[in-house]
Protein backbone atom coordinates (compact mmCIF):
# COMPACT_ATOMS: atom_id res chain seq x y z
CA UNK A 1 0.00 0.00 0.00
CA UNK A 2 1.56 3.24 -1.12
CA UNK A 3 2.06 5.95 1.47
CA UNK A 4 1.29 8.60 -1.17
CA UNK A 5 -2.26 7.42 -1.60
CA UNK A 6 -4.63 10.23 -0.78
CA UNK A 7 -7.13 9.41 1.92
CA UNK A 8 -9.83 11.65 3.15
CA UNK A 9 -11.44 14.49 1.33
CA UNK A 10 -9.72 15.83 -1.78
CA UNK A 11 -11.81 19.02 -1.49
CA UNK A 12 -10.41 19.76 1.93
CA UNK A 13 -6.85 19.19 0.77
CA UNK A 14 -7.36 21.50 -2.15
CA UNK A 15 -8.74 24.17 0.11
CA UNK A 16 -5.75 24.28 2.42
CA UNK A 17 -3.46 26.37 0.30
CA UNK A 18 -6.04 28.59 -1.37
CA UNK A 19 -6.98 32.05 -0.18
CA UNK A 20 -10.55 31.50 0.88
CA UNK A 21 -12.02 33.49 3.72
CA UNK A 22 -14.11 31.97 6.48
CA UNK A 23 -17.35 33.27 5.03
CA UNK A 24 -16.54 31.51 1.77
CA UNK A 25 -15.95 28.25 3.57
CA UNK A 26 -19.34 28.44 5.21
CA UNK A 27 -21.13 28.86 1.93
CA UNK A 28 -19.07 26.37 -0.09
CA UNK A 29 -20.23 22.90 -1.00
CA UNK A 30 -19.89 20.24 1.69
CA UNK A 31 -16.65 18.28 1.64
CA UNK A 32 -17.36 14.91 0.11
CA UNK A 33 -16.75 11.90 2.30
CA UNK A 34 -15.40 13.46 5.47
CA UNK A 35 -18.51 13.32 7.57
CA UNK A 36 -16.87 14.72 10.69
CA UNK A 37 -16.41 18.07 8.94
CA UNK A 38 -20.03 18.45 7.94
CA UNK A 39 -22.67 20.83 9.21
CA UNK A 40 -25.61 19.21 10.94
CA UNK A 41 -28.02 19.47 8.03
CA UNK A 42 -25.34 18.28 5.64
CA UNK A 43 -24.63 15.41 8.01
CA UNK A 44 -28.28 14.38 7.98
CA UNK A 45 -28.30 14.48 4.21
CA UNK A 46 -25.09 12.47 4.11
CA UNK A 47 -26.54 9.80 6.39
CA UNK A 48 -29.68 9.78 4.29
CA UNK A 49 -27.72 9.27 1.11
CA UNK A 50 -25.49 6.62 2.65
CA UNK A 51 -28.38 4.58 3.96
CA UNK A 52 -30.18 4.94 0.66
CA UNK A 53 -27.13 3.91 -1.33
CA UNK A 54 -26.41 0.92 0.86
CA UNK A 55 -30.03 -0.20 0.74
CA UNK A 56 -30.25 0.41 -2.99
CA UNK A 57 -27.04 -1.26 -4.13
CA UNK A 58 -27.28 -4.27 -1.86
CA UNK A 59 -30.84 -4.86 -2.99
CA UNK A 60 -32.23 -4.46 0.51
CA UNK A 61 -34.49 -1.61 -0.51
CA UNK A 62 -36.29 -3.75 -3.02
CA UNK A 63 -36.65 -6.56 -0.51
CA UNK A 64 -38.01 -4.31 2.23
CA UNK A 65 -40.25 -2.62 -0.30
CA UNK A 66 -41.77 -5.88 -1.38
CA UNK A 67 -42.38 -6.87 2.19
CA UNK A 68 -43.79 -3.57 3.47
CA UNK A 69 -45.59 -2.39 0.38
CA UNK A 70 -48.72 -4.51 0.84
CA UNK A 71 -48.95 -3.40 4.45
CA UNK A 72 -48.54 0.31 3.74
CA UNK A 73 -50.74 0.05 0.70
CA UNK A 74 -53.43 -1.72 2.68
CA UNK A 75 -53.39 1.03 5.28
CA UNK A 76 -53.42 3.87 2.77
CA UNK A 77 -56.07 2.28 0.61
CA UNK A 78 -58.55 1.44 3.30
CA UNK A 79 -58.30 4.60 5.38
CA UNK A 80 -58.20 7.64 3.13
CA UNK A 81 -58.76 10.63 5.35
CA UNK A 82 -60.37 13.42 3.31
CA UNK A 83 -60.17 17.05 4.30
CA UNK A 84 -63.44 18.38 5.64
CA UNK A 85 -63.58 21.26 3.21
CA UNK A 86 -66.64 22.38 1.32
CA UNK A 87 -66.94 25.01 -1.39
CA UNK A 88 -70.45 24.80 -2.80
CA UNK A 89 -73.44 22.49 -3.20
CA UNK A 90 -71.37 19.33 -3.76
CA UNK A 91 -70.32 19.75 -0.13
CA UNK A 92 -73.92 19.06 0.85
CA UNK A 93 -73.74 15.81 -1.07
CA UNK A 94 -70.46 15.08 0.66
CA UNK A 95 -72.24 15.50 3.97
CA UNK A 96 -75.08 13.30 2.80
CA UNK A 97 -72.58 10.62 1.82
CA UNK A 98 -71.43 10.36 5.40
CA UNK A 99 -74.99 10.38 6.72
CA UNK A 100 -76.64 7.06 7.69
CA UNK A 101 -78.28 6.47 4.30
CA UNK A 102 -74.97 6.18 2.44
CA UNK A 103 -72.65 5.38 5.29
CA UNK A 104 -69.32 6.25 3.68
CA UNK A 105 -67.47 5.58 6.91
CA UNK A 106 -67.53 1.90 6.05
CA UNK A 107 -65.01 2.65 3.29
CA UNK A 108 -62.67 3.89 6.00
CA UNK A 109 -63.22 7.57 5.40
CA UNK A 110 -62.79 9.81 8.38
CA UNK A 111 -63.16 13.51 7.71
CA UNK A 112 -60.40 15.50 9.35
CA UNK A 113 -60.44 19.22 9.81
CA UNK A 114 -56.71 19.82 9.53
CA UNK A 115 -54.84 19.37 6.24
CA UNK A 116 -51.87 18.03 8.20
CA UNK A 117 -53.85 14.90 9.03
CA UNK A 118 -55.33 14.26 5.59
CA UNK A 119 -54.59 12.16 2.54
CA UNK A 120 -57.33 13.23 0.16
CA UNK A 121 -58.40 16.70 -0.87
CA UNK A 122 -61.93 16.83 -2.28
CA UNK A 123 -62.43 19.89 -4.48
CA UNK A 124 -66.20 20.16 -4.45
CA UNK A 125 -67.22 23.32 -6.20
CA UNK A 126 -66.08 26.14 -8.44
CA UNK A 127 -62.67 27.49 -7.49
CA UNK A 128 -62.70 31.23 -7.88
CA UNK A 129 -59.59 33.33 -8.31
CA UNK A 130 -59.67 34.46 -4.72
CA UNK A 131 -59.87 30.90 -3.42
CA UNK A 132 -57.15 29.44 -5.63
CA UNK A 133 -54.09 30.44 -3.57
CA UNK A 134 -55.79 29.21 -0.40
CA UNK A 135 -56.64 25.86 -1.97
CA UNK A 136 -53.09 25.56 -3.22
CA UNK A 137 -51.87 26.23 0.32
CA UNK A 138 -54.18 23.52 1.67
CA UNK A 139 -52.83 21.08 -0.89
CA UNK A 140 -49.25 21.89 -0.02
CA UNK A 141 -49.92 21.54 3.71
CA UNK A 142 -51.03 17.93 3.29
CA UNK A 143 -48.32 15.31 3.91
CA UNK A 144 -47.25 12.86 1.26
CA UNK A 145 -48.74 10.64 -0.07
CA UNK A 146 -51.77 12.70 -1.10
CA UNK A 147 -54.50 12.50 -3.67
CA UNK A 148 -56.97 14.99 -5.10
CA UNK A 149 -60.54 14.27 -6.12
CA UNK A 150 -62.30 16.73 -8.42
CA UNK A 151 -65.93 16.39 -7.48
CA UNK A 152 -68.58 17.75 -9.82
CA UNK A 153 -68.56 19.69 -13.05
CA UNK A 154 -67.31 22.91 -11.50
CA UNK A 155 -64.15 21.32 -10.16
CA UNK A 156 -63.56 19.40 -13.38
CA UNK A 157 -63.91 22.18 -15.92
CA UNK A 158 -65.54 25.19 -14.30
CA UNK A 159 -69.00 23.83 -15.07
CA UNK A 160 -71.64 26.47 -15.77
CA UNK A 161 -69.17 29.15 -14.72
CA UNK A 162 -66.42 28.14 -17.12
CA UNK A 163 -66.35 31.51 -18.90
CA UNK A 164 -66.85 33.60 -15.80
CA UNK A 165 -64.53 36.44 -14.95
CA UNK A 166 -63.61 35.03 -11.57
CA UNK A 167 -63.87 31.24 -11.74
CA UNK A 168 -60.90 29.03 -12.56
CA UNK A 169 -61.68 26.60 -15.38
CA UNK A 170 -61.05 23.37 -13.54
CA UNK A 171 -59.02 22.34 -10.52
CA UNK A 172 -56.50 20.54 -12.72
CA UNK A 173 -55.21 23.82 -14.08
CA UNK A 174 -53.22 24.33 -10.88
CA UNK A 175 -53.02 21.02 -9.01
CA UNK A 176 -52.71 17.35 -9.98
CA UNK A 177 -56.07 15.58 -9.90
CA UNK A 178 -56.35 11.83 -9.48
CA UNK A 179 -60.05 11.08 -9.75
CA UNK A 180 -62.74 13.03 -11.60
CA UNK A 181 -66.33 12.48 -10.53
CA UNK A 182 -68.85 13.95 -12.98
CA UNK A 183 -72.29 15.09 -11.91
CA UNK A 184 -74.07 18.28 -11.05
CA UNK A 185 -74.24 17.85 -8.16
CA UNK A 186 -72.52 14.54 -7.58
CA UNK A 187 -74.74 11.97 -5.96
CA UNK A 188 -73.42 10.29 -2.80
CA UNK A 189 -73.24 6.96 -4.63
CA UNK A 190 -71.00 8.59 -7.22
CA UNK A 191 -68.74 9.92 -4.49
CA UNK A 192 -68.51 6.41 -3.04
CA UNK A 193 -67.66 5.07 -6.48
CA UNK A 194 -65.00 7.76 -6.77
CA UNK A 195 -63.40 6.62 -3.55
CA UNK A 196 -63.52 2.99 -4.68
CA UNK A 197 -61.81 4.08 -7.90
CA UNK A 198 -59.19 5.85 -5.83
CA UNK A 199 -58.66 2.64 -3.86
CA UNK A 200 -58.08 0.75 -7.09
CA UNK A 201 -55.66 3.41 -8.22
CA UNK A 202 -53.70 3.29 -4.98
CA UNK A 203 -53.56 -0.50 -5.17
CA UNK A 204 -52.29 -0.47 -8.74
CA UNK A 205 -50.10 2.62 -8.90
CA UNK A 206 -48.67 3.31 -5.50
CA UNK A 207 -45.01 2.27 -5.27
CA UNK A 208 -43.30 1.08 -2.10
CA UNK A 209 -42.77 3.52 0.68
CA UNK A 210 -39.42 2.37 2.09
CA UNK A 211 -36.77 5.08 1.51
CA UNK A 212 -38.87 6.55 -1.25
CA UNK A 213 -37.25 9.26 -3.33
Amino acid at each position, binding site marked *: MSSKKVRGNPNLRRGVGSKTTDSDKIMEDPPAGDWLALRSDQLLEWIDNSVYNVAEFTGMREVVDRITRPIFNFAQRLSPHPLHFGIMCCAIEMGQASAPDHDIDRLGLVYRSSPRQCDVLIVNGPVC*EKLRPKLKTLYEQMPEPKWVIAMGECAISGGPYWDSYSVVAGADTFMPVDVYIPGCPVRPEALMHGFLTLQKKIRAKEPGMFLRR
Partner: protein
Amino acid sequence: MNIDEFMQQLSSSKGVSNISKIRKNTVKLDLTKEESLDFFVSIKSEFEHCSLISAIDNQPDFELVYHFSCMNQSIVVDDSNCAVMLEAHIYLKREAPSVDSIANIWFGADWHEREAFDLMGIYFIGHPDLRRVLLPEGFAGHPLRKDYVYEIHEEEW
Protein backbone atom coordinates in the same frame (compact mmCIF):
# COMPACT_ATOMS: atom_id res chain seq x y z
CA MET B 1 -96.09 61.05 11.07
CA ASN B 2 -98.17 59.64 8.29
CA ILE B 3 -96.47 58.69 5.06
CA ASP B 4 -98.39 61.35 3.09
CA GLU B 5 -97.23 64.07 5.47
CA PHE B 6 -93.72 62.71 5.08
CA MET B 7 -93.97 63.02 1.29
CA GLN B 8 -95.16 66.58 1.69
CA GLN B 9 -92.16 67.29 3.89
CA LEU B 10 -89.74 65.67 1.44
CA SER B 11 -90.98 67.68 -1.53
CA SER B 12 -89.68 70.89 0.06
CA SER B 13 -86.11 69.61 0.54
CA LYS B 14 -83.38 70.43 -1.92
CA GLY B 15 -82.36 68.20 -4.79
CA VAL B 16 -85.46 66.02 -4.64
CA SER B 17 -87.72 65.49 -7.61
CA ASN B 18 -90.30 63.03 -8.93
CA ILE B 19 -91.66 61.95 -5.57
CA SER B 20 -94.14 59.16 -5.94
CA LYS B 21 -95.58 56.35 -3.91
CA ILE B 22 -94.91 53.11 -5.77
CA ARG B 23 -96.36 50.87 -3.10
CA LYS B 24 -98.50 51.47 -0.08
CA ASN B 25 -95.44 51.79 2.13
CA THR B 26 -92.71 52.75 -0.34
CA VAL B 27 -91.73 56.24 -1.43
CA LYS B 28 -89.65 56.65 -4.54
CA LEU B 29 -87.74 59.81 -5.40
CA ASP B 30 -84.93 61.08 -7.58
CA LEU B 31 -81.95 62.86 -6.10
CA THR B 32 -79.29 65.04 -7.59
CA LYS B 33 -75.75 64.00 -6.92
CA GLU B 34 -74.71 67.30 -5.30
CA GLU B 35 -77.44 67.47 -2.64
CA SER B 36 -77.46 63.77 -1.86
CA LEU B 37 -75.35 63.89 1.29
CA ASP B 38 -77.41 66.65 2.93
CA PHE B 39 -80.58 64.77 2.10
CA PHE B 40 -79.30 61.53 3.57
CA VAL B 41 -78.23 63.27 6.77
CA SER B 42 -81.70 64.77 7.11
CA ILE B 43 -83.50 61.44 6.84
CA LYS B 44 -81.15 59.56 9.16
CA SER B 45 -83.38 60.18 12.19
CA GLU B 46 -86.35 58.37 10.63
CA PHE B 47 -84.68 55.73 8.49
CA GLU B 48 -82.27 53.89 10.71
CA HIS B 49 -81.45 51.05 8.34
CA CYS B 50 -79.75 51.17 4.95
CA SER B 51 -81.13 48.06 3.30
CA LEU B 52 -79.18 48.01 0.09
CA ILE B 53 -77.33 50.03 -2.51
CA SER B 54 -77.58 48.79 -6.06
CA ALA B 55 -75.76 50.08 -9.08
CA ILE B 56 -77.32 49.80 -12.54
CA ASP B 57 -75.53 50.28 -15.83
CA ASN B 58 -78.09 51.98 -18.05
CA GLN B 59 -75.63 52.65 -20.86
CA PRO B 60 -74.36 55.25 -21.13
CA ASP B 61 -75.17 56.43 -17.62
CA PHE B 62 -75.13 54.78 -14.23
CA GLU B 63 -77.95 54.72 -11.75
CA LEU B 64 -77.62 54.16 -8.03
CA VAL B 65 -80.62 52.92 -6.06
CA TYR B 66 -80.63 53.29 -2.30
CA HIS B 67 -83.19 51.52 -0.16
CA PHE B 68 -83.77 52.66 3.39
CA SER B 69 -86.11 51.17 5.96
CA CYS B 70 -87.93 52.84 8.81
CA MET B 71 -88.72 50.27 11.44
CA ASN B 72 -89.07 52.48 14.52
CA GLN B 73 -92.66 53.55 13.69
CA SER B 74 -91.78 57.22 13.40
CA ILE B 75 -93.46 57.10 10.00
CA VAL B 76 -96.61 55.03 9.73
CA VAL B 77 -98.86 53.93 6.92
CA ASP B 78 -102.40 54.89 7.89
CA ASP B 79 -103.41 52.43 10.58
CA SER B 80 -101.13 49.49 9.80
CA ASN B 81 -97.77 48.98 11.46
CA CYS B 82 -95.72 47.91 8.44
CA ALA B 83 -92.27 49.38 7.92
CA VAL B 84 -91.87 52.30 5.54
CA MET B 85 -89.24 52.16 2.83
CA LEU B 86 -87.60 54.95 0.91
CA GLU B 87 -86.15 54.35 -2.54
CA ALA B 88 -83.75 57.03 -3.77
CA HIS B 89 -82.36 57.09 -7.29
CA ILE B 90 -79.19 58.97 -8.22
CA TYR B 91 -78.11 59.25 -11.84
CA LEU B 92 -74.39 59.45 -12.55
CA LYS B 93 -72.43 60.31 -15.65
CA ARG B 94 -70.36 57.58 -17.17
CA GLU B 95 -67.11 59.54 -17.37
CA ALA B 96 -66.58 60.00 -13.64
CA PRO B 97 -69.13 57.97 -11.69
CA SER B 98 -68.60 59.31 -8.20
CA VAL B 99 -70.94 60.16 -5.36
CA ASP B 100 -70.61 61.09 -1.71
CA SER B 101 -70.20 58.14 0.60
CA ILE B 102 -72.79 57.43 3.28
CA ALA B 103 -70.66 54.86 5.06
CA ASN B 104 -70.12 57.27 7.93
CA ILE B 105 -73.87 57.78 8.39
CA TRP B 106 -75.05 54.17 8.07
CA PHE B 107 -72.21 51.78 8.90
CA GLY B 108 -74.01 49.01 7.06
CA ALA B 109 -73.50 50.88 3.83
CA ASP B 110 -69.77 50.25 4.01
CA TRP B 111 -69.73 46.91 2.26
CA HIS B 112 -72.59 47.85 -0.07
CA GLU B 113 -70.45 50.68 -1.38
CA ARG B 114 -67.39 48.50 -1.62
CA GLU B 115 -69.36 45.99 -3.65
CA ALA B 116 -70.66 48.69 -5.99
CA PHE B 117 -67.11 49.92 -6.40
CA ASP B 118 -65.81 46.41 -6.97
CA LEU B 119 -68.24 45.23 -9.58
CA MET B 120 -69.46 48.45 -11.20
CA GLY B 121 -66.62 50.88 -10.60
CA ILE B 122 -68.49 53.67 -8.85
CA TYR B 123 -66.27 55.79 -6.64
CA PHE B 124 -67.64 56.78 -3.24
CA ILE B 125 -65.97 59.97 -2.06
CA GLY B 126 -65.11 59.89 1.62
CA HIS B 127 -65.40 56.16 2.05
CA PRO B 128 -63.05 55.03 4.85
CA ASP B 129 -61.75 51.91 3.11
CA LEU B 130 -62.63 51.64 -0.56
CA ARG B 131 -61.17 48.30 -1.58
CA ARG B 132 -62.41 45.38 -3.61
CA VAL B 133 -64.59 43.06 -1.57
CA LEU B 134 -65.45 40.13 -3.82
CA LEU B 135 -62.70 40.00 -6.43
CA PRO B 136 -59.02 39.56 -5.68
CA GLU B 137 -56.75 42.55 -5.36
CA GLY B 138 -55.18 43.45 -8.65
CA PHE B 139 -58.17 42.45 -10.75
CA ALA B 140 -58.37 44.62 -13.85
CA GLY B 141 -61.64 46.34 -14.61
CA HIS B 142 -65.14 46.21 -13.19
CA PRO B 143 -66.87 43.12 -14.55
CA LEU B 144 -70.55 44.00 -14.20
CA ARG B 145 -70.29 46.98 -16.52
CA LYS B 146 -71.97 46.33 -19.81
CA ASP B 147 -68.90 47.29 -21.81
CA TYR B 148 -66.60 45.02 -19.85
CA VAL B 149 -64.78 42.61 -22.13
CA TYR B 150 -63.26 39.55 -20.60
CA GLU B 151 -60.73 37.46 -22.42
CA ILE B 152 -62.01 33.96 -21.82
CA HIS B 153 -59.40 31.67 -20.33
CA GLU B 154 -60.23 28.94 -22.78
CA GLU B 155 -57.79 26.22 -23.63
CA GLU B 156 -57.73 24.77 -27.09
CA TRP B 157 -59.17 21.29 -26.84
